[in-house]
Structure formats: structure tokens, C-alpha cells
């Protein structure tokens, strides 16, 4: 063998061995470029933003907050879920008899904790990041992200507390938790923590006008409004788990003061957020890219886009205006139904909010506007016809309004009244502001603003019903006032009266007769006004006895009106109104059975 060969082969062997062994420790450290370690992510503001988006992500999607918006928040005296009772589905929730195995509960419940975990990772990541070593003054951008993460974690916890009472609280990432199966924390304690966090977040976040992001992300104003809402909830009646009664903390007024102060701060910055002069435009804004909210009444919305089950929602497809599949718009609406008496709560001729909030109409196969029967009116703030989507598309990219400025005014009015046990002039003026917009064009019809504590409180209770119908607010208002039982009983009594044509419903007709008219989107009052009912538009025909017979005049179709309401729809076990509600028990949901299975330290809520 030639020497050169020997040399070469020895070199060959040595080289290969050396190449692969000398850096063996390093060799075994493989980092995929598709993933990024969490520690690395928070050394970059751009990655931190991406991580934060991951925490925002849980707001939307099939298991996002629209689950609370369209399922969990029903029934109240405004709306309920359509269909017949089953303990296992959405009607079980709406009838206040959800089974622990109910399929509407676990997905979104777990989703909230996924959101909390991701927010926790962001909070820890930012707080320990080298970029944030000198705090928000050194890096305001990272500070803002920290504020948003705190706000998200607070919102997710709040949703858990108001639906389950006492829940497992997670304030650090799960990987830092010594044990994951921990008992629940009292809802009051969770919300105290949340209120502190939001206080911190306020300091970190800029006002809307200084923020580069739209109101789909938290601004200072949004956090303040959210903190006011949570403070009022904390200051209201909450489910006390050990005694399973609705109780209110002795120092509840302290929380009203927090809300009062936050609202006052916001009302001092009308340049940032103010009432939208046109009530309807708030909701139209949610449906399209054309913003019709110049005053930024919408303080925080959940963004929706992408047409899929993770970043979009079915608002307007699941709920809202009922639209026939064969119409020009394609199928929409029908999952949420109006409580018949709610329609008659509004001032029929003066309050512009009624025809926005309730669809007395529906759209048929020929894209004509026709009547609904009395128990089939739908929620009106969501309409597929307001979107640009047509056809079979189920995901319409409609945003969900979490909080808007009108709530700030009414919370302020309520807090002032509660703290002072008397409506202050500022409180009165706030209520008047709301009514003035509602009674646009009919301001002379505005009812007198009460001047004493109890009447003013009652006025607030009523005004919030009229202002926020279908916005997933009513049930939780009634809960914190501990009025669920009494208001449900009152509503049932009203429904009986309506069914029987007793006062104040003595002029409500048994039947209405309707001819289809072409549907063209304009404003809701005009649209409803254009309907062709025998005896006049709904504002007239639904408020006078009419012919009283099921036989329609020639050319008209009969719709059951009072006739449509039966005992079954009031107290029945299949389609009744909140039939299975029991005070001090059903205000909160059962923990999903799958959750109890893995965490044996959680005890099922009383009554389930």
C-alpha cells in the first residue's frame, strides 16, 4: 500500500472522529427554528407582542367569550336561548338547569384558563425580561404589553367568577406552580386581586388616542371602564360558596367608590370616549370596516376575522336577525329569542333603542321583510345583513362589544346614588344623557329623572335593561343586585298578563296580519316603520286589539301574537322562561364534570 493511502485513510478516520466528538455537548443542543423558547421570546418587544397576541387569542373563536355572550349570559328578562330544554346543551344553560356534563361549559371554561396561562407567561416574561429591567419608564412599550397582559388575566378571571362564583385562581404560570390540583379561591378574593392588577395596568397603558392599536386591544380607558364594572360586581351580591347564599360584603361601598372614581376619570376625558350620537351606529360599527363611532363609545371590542373557529365568531349567524337560507344574504340568526314582554318595556313611539335591540321582523326566502310571531322575535344588535358576508358563511367577523361608554355613564349614576344614598345632580345628568340619546327626536317624552334613592335605583335598573339588551349584561346586573329571583317572577307575571290580554297589555292583539315588503338596510326605526301590517306599522298594529281572528284579510298572512304565548312558554319544562332557576343556587354554573375529575380539590357548586 502506498504511503499516501495510509496517510489519507488515517486522516480520514481522525477527521471524522474529531469533527463529531470535539463539540459533542454542543452537538446535542438542537433548536428548531419553528419554535422559540419562552425565555428568548421576551427579550424582543416584537416577540413579546406576538406572545401577548397569543393571550388575546382566547377572546375569540368557538370557545371564546362569545360563549358567554350568546349562551352563558341567558336567560334574563331581555333574551333567552331558542329551542327546547336539554340539560346537556345550550338550553340547559338558559333554563338554569345545566348538567355538569353540559357540552356548552367545559370548552370555554378551559379556554379561559388557557388565556390566563398565556397571560401569566407574558406577565412573568415581561417582568423578568432584560428589556424591562428599569421598568415602564425605561421601556414604555414593554410596560404597555404588561398592562395588557394584566388586563387580559383580569378579564378572564372576572368571567370565571361571575359564572362560577369561587374558582381556581392562577397568578403564576403553571410551570411555576408546585401543585396544579388546588381548591377554589373565594370570588371576592379573586376580584380583589383583579382590581389591584387593573389599577397597575391603568398606570401602564396609554389612552386610546396615544395607542397605536384600535379598541380591540386594551387602552387606559377600557381598563378603567372594566375596573369600574368589576368593582360594581364586587360591591354587589356574590355567591358565597361555604354558605351558598348571595351575600354582599360589609364594605361594599368601598367598591362603589372605586367604580365612581374610575367613571368620573373617564367622564372627564370626553375627548377619548363619549356617547355615539346615533345609538344604532354603535352596533353597525361592529359589523363592518366602516367605523360609525366617531366618539369611540366602543371602549373595548373583541376583534373577529379569519372565518375560522379560532379567530372568528358566529355572531349574526348563530344569533340576531333571522334570515332565510335562500335569501340574498344566506342563513342568519335565530339562536336567541326575545322575551315577549321586553318588547313592551320600551316607549313605543319615542325610544329608538327598541327596533335596534329587538327584531320584530325576519327576512324570508325572497329577501322580503315579514313579521315574526310574538315568541320568535330575535336580538337585533347582530344582523348578517349588516355584514358584507352572504351565502353559507357562518363566520361573519362581527366584533363583540365588551364595554362601551354608555355603561360608564350608568355605572357612574348608580355609584353616585349608592354612595350618597341619593342621586347627585351629576348622577341625574348622566342618566339624562343616556335617555336623551335614546329619545332622539322625541326628547319631550323623556320620563322625569327621579330625585330619591330608591326610585333612582329603580330607574337605573330599568334603564340598563333598555340600554344593554342582548349585550350579555342583564343577567350579571340582576345577579349583583340579587334581583334574579324577583325579576324572573315579575317577568313571568307580566307574561301571564300579556298572554291573557290583561293590563297593561289589554290593547295587545291576538293576531297580526302582514304582507311581505322588500328588505333594504336603512335604519331600524325606518325599516320597521316600512312593514306592511294590517292596521298599520308595528308601532300601531301591535298596540291595538285589531281583528282578533286567525283569518287574515285578503293578501295578508296571519301571525300569532298574543295567541303565540302559552303557559308552556312561561313556566313549561321545555320552553319556559328560566323555569329551573332557584335563588341562592342557580346563579352560578356547575363545574364541568371533566374539571372535577382531574382536580379532586374542587367541590361541585351547591345544587348540582
Amino acid at each position: 500500500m502506498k504511503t499516501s493511502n495510509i496517510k489519507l485513510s488515517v486522516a480520514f478516520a481522525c477527521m471524522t472522529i474529531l469533527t463529531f466528538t470535539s463539540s459533542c455537548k454542543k452537538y446535542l443542543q438542537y433548536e428548531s427554528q419553528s419554535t422559540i423558547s419562552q425565555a428568548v421570546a421576551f427579550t424582543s418587544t416584537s416577540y413579546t407582542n406576538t406572545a401577548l397576541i397569543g393571550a388575546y387569542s382566547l377572546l375569540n373563536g368557538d370557545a371564546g367569550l362569545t360563549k358567554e355572550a350568546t349562551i352563558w349570559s341567558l336567560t334574563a328578562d331581555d333574551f333567552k336561548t331558542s329551542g327546547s330544554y336539554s340539560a346537556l346543551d345550550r338550553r340547559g344553560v338558559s333554563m338554569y338547569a345545566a348538567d355538569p356534563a353540559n357540552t356548552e361549559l367545559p370548552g370555554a371554561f378551559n379556554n379561559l384558563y388557557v388565556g390566563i396561562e398565556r397571560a401569566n407567561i407574558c406577565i412573568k416574561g415581561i417582568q423578568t425580561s432584560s428589556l424591562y429591567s428599569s421598568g415602564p419608564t425605561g421601556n414604555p412599550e414593554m410596560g404597555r404589553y404588561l398592562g395588557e397582559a394584566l388586563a387580559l388575566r383580569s378579564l378572564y378571571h372576572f368571567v370565571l367568577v361571575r359564572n362560577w362564583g369561587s374558582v381556581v385562581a392562577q397568578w403564576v404560570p403553571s410551570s411555576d406552580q408546585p401543585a396544579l390540583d388546588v381548591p377554589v379561591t373565594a370570588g371576592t378574593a379573586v376580584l380583589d386581586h383583579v382590581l389591584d392588577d387593573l389599577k397597575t395596568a391603568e398606570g401602564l397603558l396609554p389612552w386610546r388616542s396615544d395607542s397605536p392599536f384600535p379598541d380591540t386591544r386594551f387602552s387606559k380607558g377600557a381598563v378603567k371602564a372594566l375596573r369600574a364594572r368589576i368593582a360594581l360586581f364586587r360591591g354587589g351580591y356574590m355567591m358565597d360558596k361555604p354558605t351558598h347564599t348571595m351575600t354582599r360584603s360589609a364594605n361594599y361601598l368601598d367598591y362603589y367608590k372605586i367604580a365612581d372614581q374610575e367613571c368620573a376619570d373617564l367622564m372627564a376625558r370626553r375627548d377619548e370616549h363619549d356617547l355615539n350620537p346615533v345609538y344604532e351606529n354603535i352596533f353597525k360599527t361592529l359589523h363592518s370596516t366602516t367605523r360609525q363611532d366617531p366618539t369611540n363609545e366602543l371602549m373595548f371590542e373583541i376583534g373577529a376575522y379569519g372565518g375560522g373557529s379560532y379567530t372568528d365568531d358566529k355572531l349574526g349567524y348563530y344569533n340576531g336577525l333571522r334570515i332565510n337560507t335562500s335569501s340574498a344574504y344566506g342563513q342568519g340568526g335565530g339562536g336567541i329569542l326575545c322575551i315577549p314582554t321586553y318588547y313592551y318595556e320600551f316607549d313605543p313611539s319615542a325610544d329608538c333603542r327598541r327596533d335596534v335591540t329587538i327584531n320584530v321582523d325576519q327576512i324570508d326566502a325572497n329577501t322580503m321583510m315579514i313579521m315574526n310571531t310574538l315568541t320568535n322575535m330575535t336580538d337585533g344588535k347582530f344582523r348578517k345583513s349588516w355584514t358584507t358576508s352572504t351565502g353559507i358563511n357562518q363566520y361573519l367577523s362581527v366584533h363583540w362589544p365588551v364595554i362601551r361608554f354608555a355603561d360608564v355613564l350608568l355605572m357612574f349614576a348608580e355609584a353616585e346614588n349608592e354612595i350618597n344614598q341619593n342621586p347627585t345632580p351629576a348622577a341625574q345628568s348622566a342618566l339624562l344623557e343616556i335617555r336623551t340619546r335614546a329619545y332622539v327626536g322625541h326628547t319631550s317624552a323623556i320620563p322625569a329623572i327621579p330625585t330619591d334613592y330608591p326610585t333612582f335605583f329603580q330607574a337605573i335598573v330599568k334603564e340598563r335593561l333598555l340600554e344593554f339588551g342582548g349585550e350579555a349584561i342583564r343577567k350579571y346586573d340582576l345577579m349583583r343586585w340579587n334581583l334574579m329571583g324577583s325579576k324572573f317572577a315579575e317577568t313571568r307575571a307580566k307574561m301571564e298578563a300579556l298572554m291573557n290580554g290583561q293590563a297593561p297589555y289589554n290593547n295587545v292583539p291576538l293576531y297580526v296580519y302582514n304582507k311581505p315588503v322588500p328588505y333594504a338596510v336603512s335604519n331600524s326605526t325606518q325599516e320597521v316603520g316600512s312593514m306592511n301590517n294590517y292596521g298599520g306599522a308595528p308601532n300601531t298594529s301591535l298596540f291595538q286589539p285589531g281583528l282578533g281572528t286567525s283569518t287574515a284579510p285578503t293578501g295578508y298572512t296571519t301571525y300569532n301574537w298574543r295567541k303565540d304565548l302559552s303557559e308552556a312558554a312561561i313556566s313549561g319544562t321545555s320552553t319556559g322562561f328560566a323555569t329551573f332557576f332557584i335563588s341562592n343556587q342557580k346563579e352560578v354554573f356547575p363545574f364541568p364534570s371533566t374539571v372535577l375529575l382531574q382536580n379532586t380539590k374542587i367541590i361541585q357548586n351547591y345544587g348540582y
Partner: protein
Amino acid sequence: MKKTLLQVLLMLFFCMSALAQTRQLTGKVFGKKNETLIGVTIKIKSTGAGTATDMNGAFKLNVPASGNVTLVVTYIGYKSQEVAVTNQNDIVINMLEDEAKMLNEVTVVNIGYSTVSKNALTGSVSSVTDKDVKDFPVASVAEALAGKLAGVSVQTSEGAPGASIKVTVRGGGSITGDNSPLYIVDGIQVENALSILSPQEIQSIDVLKDIASTAIYGARGANGVVLITTKSGAGQTPKVSISTYLGVRKFVHELDVMKPSDFVQYQYQIATGSQSDLDAYNKEYGAFSDIDIYKNYPYIDWQQAVFGRNALTQSETINISGGTQAASYSFTANNFKEDGIQLNSGFNRGFVAFRYDTKLSDKFKFGFNIRYSRQDVIGAGTSSTGTQSSNRLRNAVRFRPFSAPGLESQVDQFDPTYATYTNLTSPLIGTYSITKNNYTNQVIGSVNAQYTILPRLILSSVIGITSTDNPINQFSDSTTSIARQYGDLPVVDLSASSTLTVTNSNTLNYNFTVGRYHNITLLAGEEINQSDNNSQAMEIKWMPADITPTQAFAAIQKATPPNGSIQDAPTTSQTGTRLFSLFARASYSYKDKYLANVTVRRDGSSLFSPENQYAVFPAGQLAWRVTEEEFMKKLNLTWLDNLKVRLSYGEGGNNRIGVDLYKTLFTAGSKSGYAVSQSVTPGFAPNALANPNIKWETTISRNLGVDFDIFKGRIGGSVDVYKNNVRDLLLQQQIPSTSGYSTQIQNIGATSNQGVELQLNGMAVNTRNFRYNINFNISFNRNKIVSLGDDQYGNPKSSYPVASGGINGNDFIAQVGGPVGQFYGYVSDGRYELSDFNATYHSSSNSYTYVLKPGVANDAAVALGAKYPQPGDMKLKKMSTTGDSTLTTADAVVLGTSQPKFFGGINQQFSYKNFDLSIFMNYSVGNKEYNANRSEFTTQYLYKDNNMLAVVANRWNKIDANGNVVTDPKLLAQMNANTTFWTPPTGQYILTSYEIEDGSFLRISNVTLGYSLPQSFLSRTKIFSKFRVYATVNNLYTFTKYSGYDPEASTRNGNPLTPGVDYAAYPRNRFFIAGVDLSF
């Protein structure tokens, strides 16, 4: 790294230029009858260089110009002999026949990084050689291997072209991980090698079965190691072999479905439930009074229409091999084309392979291998692990079995309304609705070099690169369910993954003898193995309605999303693994009588955190060749030729687990994104709650084996008994969801496998003209789950349910004490008979109502869609003792397992003069098969207008001759005196014992009859050295009680916990082949 490799390669090529000084030796070889022998191997003992005799029995060989040379002459059926050559130029060699050797042709066994003679083997190794697989004209070696090796289970999941083949050695120990063995082809790791290589390329396959043997492969050895050696060139004159065959595949066995009349009768019966259903029935099928006309309707056999074609397969292989004294080469090219029996399915493959070995000097050997292959699996098949409606066998079985005036359009055109309420599309439309091409382009290259540093000290190096590209194009036309979700417009899915694997191993081998009898071999080595994977995927929706698949693949930009919708973002991902190992082996033998082997390997893997990265896997083996003992020799047992006892103990790891399990990572994606404005901003999501303490799954194995040869080598065999325990199995532990995660992976499981294997080879007849060889093997394996970790209370978890996917919900259970893969469901109790009820007569309606007698099980909730049981409904047994007679999920029980009591194969080879015949059978006994098709095809669930299996025709009858529903118990009793089946339930599909069948089978998997032209004739042609024609039938017949297409089907192989499910499996075929092999 790449640069280094390149340098090394260049260097090695450069080395080839040197050659040594030689002279030419010629000679001739004769057999026992003084005939010339063709193809006798002649090798120079010292260098290994060699040649083979030509058709005249002559050979030419370059030997060193000076000095004495020893030639080793070997030939099948003859004793190999050594011939000393001094200065002759022409020699004559006479061979002596040796029967004892005939059965021991595989005398050299690959044990990983080196070979040993079979006698010196201390571990449990099963081997086959080219002649065991050559008679199988199939696309992949794996298909030819089923039943050939004791302890090795080879299971084809279904009959589809290119269907996945699961190879399991001794049961497999992992529950969540991959149980595939490690494949080493010519020294380098090649994933799924048995499915890639064709039988023509194989020289030998050695399967290391006991962990003590696989321990040299450490972390990758726990599932067994399959060592494949490909053919190398031999001989001096170039030899060209051409092998070609043509075959036709036929649909074997059909599911018996209801004929038109029974179908319409059944539709009428289910329509009697409501007036609206009756109206629909009348509209579709006419009045009941006219139902007799369906008796004469021609039956349309949709299964024949879809699977009944004569599916052609052709294969052409050419091999050119040859060499010089110092170098040999072999070149193989193959073209293979198969039509699937299902329309619109098939398989195409082509490969070229080149192997070159050279000896540059006495000390330096060098070789390389390169193989390029390209394959295309066509068609989406019938099974899918997705939802029930993504499994497509349904259409061919359930579509209305006739055509009628007014209904033709449903056959020829897609009818969305019909599809919605029947869950069916016309079988022909359905078959063509998805166009799928699954391409695999692969380059495997390896370079090996061996340098003899000192006479007994050898350095060997192997570098291998495997590059695989796997693009998959799928087009779902507007009739598919996915298209119907997106505006009835076609959807294109394009995905591609590529893998680059680099292996390098360097070993030093030192062999020496101490004193006279102590022989010691030491091996030390180092190895790296790295794999980098990239993948990308995109789904493009809203393609134009009339676009063709090829147009769609060529221009996906033609898609136009509707207003407000956007396409999903394309995804890419990258993963990789690194493995670095050091290993050593010491082998000792004393007088070839006492043998010992000690192995240790230390592996470091990137799959684990730096703290847990390394693991050491030790092993030891002992063997005692009893027949070498003096006292045995003195006994003079003439019938006992050889007896060896082997004992081994070893530890191995399984690193076929997911990447990055130990660290928490963010993965970005639009699913974790948020719509800040009119677009989705992608967000980060943690991939899992990482477990930094993840460590190796470890298998501990013990093996006791006996090898024997008796009756002068007429019978040989081996028996092995083993017990393998796997600990630290990785399982997904359920954790509280309030953590934000539902599971976390933890080392909490344990399993065990124990078994016995027997392999027997016999030479039954051996005369000059007639030979009859028989090989038999049988394997028993008992697999058991030992631990599944703790439950939420801290107690050992006893079981958890598993869903196979697609139908029947949680139909498996993983249970401590039971085997992996237990079917879990309800026990069928036939149907409710009238005697189960108290009947009450209602004079107002002149009808009876039925209430279950007390104590009779009520399965309404679990089986009947919450409808109260009526006479004739499906009845299930109450198994639990809790609660009343109402059945709940607590009444589900274990219904069996697909693991056989024993399995194996019988191979018989005959030769008579120039005829050869081989019959190969494999069998499996005691295994249950889960016939999920039965669930779907006998349950009504939500769907009307679906056909059912023929057994349903004999169901409970409640309709009298006039079409009225009968409730009178006496009449019902009369009407159902001869019916046996229950009313197809309207509840969800569930698993009952009715679907669990005996899956035992004996399959005549291959029969080949060949004829070779006589040598005397061939030598006159002066062209051919071999000319053989043959006819083969693959899968000739299967003896089984199983009622489905095939008892071996297993369409849920992705999860080790759900084997043995026959759900919508592509039917197996019978394959008739005629072929020619010729050489010149």
C-alpha cells in the same frame, strides 16, 4: 459539517486510483458427478477478492504475482474447501457434497458493526437471505417477509397500493411511542427500509431480537434492529439479469349487502315511523302496494363497480454486475407500475441503485452505495383516521343497490341534498372525487472504508446520507364534504416534507488469541446520527368549480375567497434530532465451546434536557456449545450434530418519541392569533406544559435460547424464550385543566412482553432430481400493561379509554394487567324478544304497547338513541352490578384483543429437475378482529336510504303483507319465527361484541411454480446463463371465519393502542403473476 463530508468523499474517490501487481489464474470446477459447476464462488482467502465460474464451470482470477495463495471455493450443497495455489496458472477443483451444510447456508450473521459465524452467535437473531424473498414478485420486501421470521410480526394495514406495513419485533413495548424497529441498511439508518427496498435488492436480512443483541444500538434498539445487506457485485465477467413480470389483481371477497327488494322493504319499515317519512318514501319508491316490482329490479353491485376491475401490475428489473479481482459493482434499475383494484388508485415506482466495492490494497477496502428512488401512491384510499364521513368505503357498500327511473341523476351527478340526508355520494363519483398523489423521492448514499492498521486491528468507517422528499398533492372536488363547507368549491391540499439524515460510525475491531484457546474480539466505536426535517402545508379553498386536479395543482392562485373570508395561512415547520453514541463490545470464546459477549453503549440525545441527555445501556450474553464438549463427543450421538445454549440480559432504549418534550416552547400560528384589525395577527402559544424531567424509555430483556441441528443437518432449528420489561414509558398524564393544559407527558408507564419462538428448518427429501425443503416458525407473545401511572388521587391508575377514531367513540381501553389494544364495548345479547315485554292492549287504537318486564336490561340510552326498547330492538347485556337494569357506560367491558395467541409461517420449497415450486403460508391464531364496518353497515343512526349488510334483510319484521305496522304479539311471533337479526338501531354507532370477530387465519400467501431451461440447453445458446419462467399467485386463499374483507386489516395503526380495527379498510386483492428471469 457538510464541508467535512465533502472533503472525506473526495478523498475516498481519490484513493481508488491505486492498484496492486497481479497475475491471472484460470481453472475449472467439477461436481460429484463430474459435471461442471456454474456459479461456484472462488475467493482469495487473504484478500476476499473473488469471482464465480461461468457456464462452462471455468473461472479466471487475478492473484498476486508472487507468493502462495489460498483459494476458498464455496458452492451451495457442497463443502467449501481451501485450495493452495503455488505457481500454477491453471487448476482443476473437484467439489465434495456436504448435506450438513445445506441447511446452514447463512453461515455469516450480521450482529451490528461486524459479522460472526452462526456458530459463534450468542444472541437471538433471525435471518433470511435473498432466496427466501426472491420468489415474491411484490413491490417491497416487507410484503415478502410476513411470517418468515419467528418473533417478527409483519402486518399490512389494508389492501391499498403503498399501504403502510407495521413491523413489530417481540410485541413492542411502547404505548405512546413508535414501536418500529431500527433499520440499518449497509451500516446506515434508513427509516422504513423494508417498505422502501424491493426484494431484488436484498442479499440478507438479519433481525436482532433480544435486547442484549440490540444493545450495541443502545437508545434505538428497544424495538429490535433489522440489519439489511444489499446485493453486491460478484464474478469477473459482467452478468446481466433481467427480471420482469406482469400480473393482474382481483377483488377477492365482497361484503354481502341487501338486494333491491330487501332494500326497499327495509326503507319502508323505517319510513313507518312518521307520516313525513312515509310521504318521502312514497315519493322515492312508490306506493307499498307496488313494492313487488323491486323483486325484478336488476341489482347493481357497487363494490364490483368500484373494486372489480382487472388491475394490472408490471415490473421490470435489470441488474448488471461484475467486477475485477480488486473491485466489484452491481447496478440495478427497476420500474414498477401497479393499478389498485379500486378505480383511481395505484402505485408507481422507479429506482436505480449502484453499489461499488473495491480493495485498494491488502489493507484498505472501500465501497459506496447510491440509490435513487421515486414513487407515487395514487388515490386517497378508503380509510381515514378522521371522522366517519371521511371514511369512503361506505359509498360502495351503502349506496342504493339499483337504479330506477328518475334516480339516475343521483348516480351520474352529485346530489347535495341526497348527500346531506343519506351521508352518501354515488360510489363512482365518490371514487373520483379526491385525487391524491403521494410522492416519495429518496436518495440514499453511503460510503464505507476499512483499513487494516495491524493484521488484527481494523478501522471501519461508514458515512451515510438519506434524503427523502415527500410531497403530497390532494384535490377534493366540489362533491366532497370539505368542499361543501366552503361554498361547494374544490379544495386543494399541498404538503411536503423533507428529511435529511446523516449517519457516521467509526469502529475499531481487534481480534487476538491468548494462549491457544482464548479468542478475544474487541470492538470500540463512535457514532453520530442526525436528522433534520422540514415540512410545509397549505390548504387552498374556493378553487373554481370546474377546475381539473392538474390545473388546480398547477395554479392555486385561481382560488377566489368569498368576500370577508381569507385563505388559511400556509404553515412550515422544522424539527431535528441529534444522537451521539460511544459503544464497545468484547467477545470471548474458549475453544469455540464457551462464548461470552459484553456490550455497553452510551447514548446522548437532543430529545432530552441536558441533565437527562445521556444514558448507558449495558448487555451481556453467554453461549455454550454443548456438542463441542468432550463428554458429548464420547456419547457419540450420531443424530445430534450441533447443540448450543444461549443466555442473555440487556437494556435498551426507545428514542422514537416526540421532539422538544422537555422544554416549553412557543409555536406561532394563526390559530393562536387574534384579529386586531381586518386581518389575523399570529400569536404565540405554548406547545405544552413541558416536563423537563423527561428521560429515556428503557427496556430490560432476558433471553434463553437453544440452537440445534440433528440428523446430519436434515433438521435444524432454534427455540427462544424471552421476557422484556419496559419502564419509564412516556404517557400523556391528565392534569387539571385549570392549569391551561389538559395533559402533560410523563415517564409513568410500564409494560412487559414475554414469549417463546420456535424456528425449524427441515430437508424432507433430498435426491438428485427431487428436493423438498420445509421451514416452519411459530411465535407466542404475551403483552401486558404493567403501569399507567397514578390517577388524580395518587392511586395507581387502572385504565383509561382510547378512541380509535371515526366511529364508535371510546372503543379501546388501556388497562393495567391487560394487553395493549383491548377492544372495549358492550356485550351483544341479540335482540329483545316478545318474551322480554309485558304487552298491553289498547282498544281505542286497537294496538298493543310494550313495557319491559322487571329485570330485563334496558339499553335505550346507550344503544337506541334514547328510544324505549321495542320487540326486535338490539339488546345488550347488563354487565355491571350497580344501578338498576338500565345500561350505562359502566356496562362496557373488554371484548378482546387483536394480539394473537400465536402466529408464524410455513414455507415449502420443492424442486424437481428443472421445475421449482414454493408454497408459502402464514397464520395467526387466537386474535380478534374489530369489524367496525359491521357497526356502520347494520346501524341506521340518522340515515335513511342507506343499504345494509345482507344479514339485515333477516331482521325483526313488524310490517304485514299490506304494509301495516303490526303490534299484536301473536302475529309478531308468527312473522318473526324465522327472523334472526335485530332492527337496525337509530342510536349512535357503538361497539358491541357483535363487531368483534375471530380473526384467526391461515393464508396461502404465495404459490410459485417455475421452470428453468436446462443448463445443457442454455450453454448451447451461448447467450443465456439462466432462463426461468414462473407463475405466481399471491394471497391465493385465506382460511378464516372472519366475515369482512380481510382479517389482517388494521386501519388505526397510528396509535399503538388501537390495533386490529377493520374500518373502511381497502379490500385485499388476489394477485396473479407471470414472469421471466433471465441472465446473460
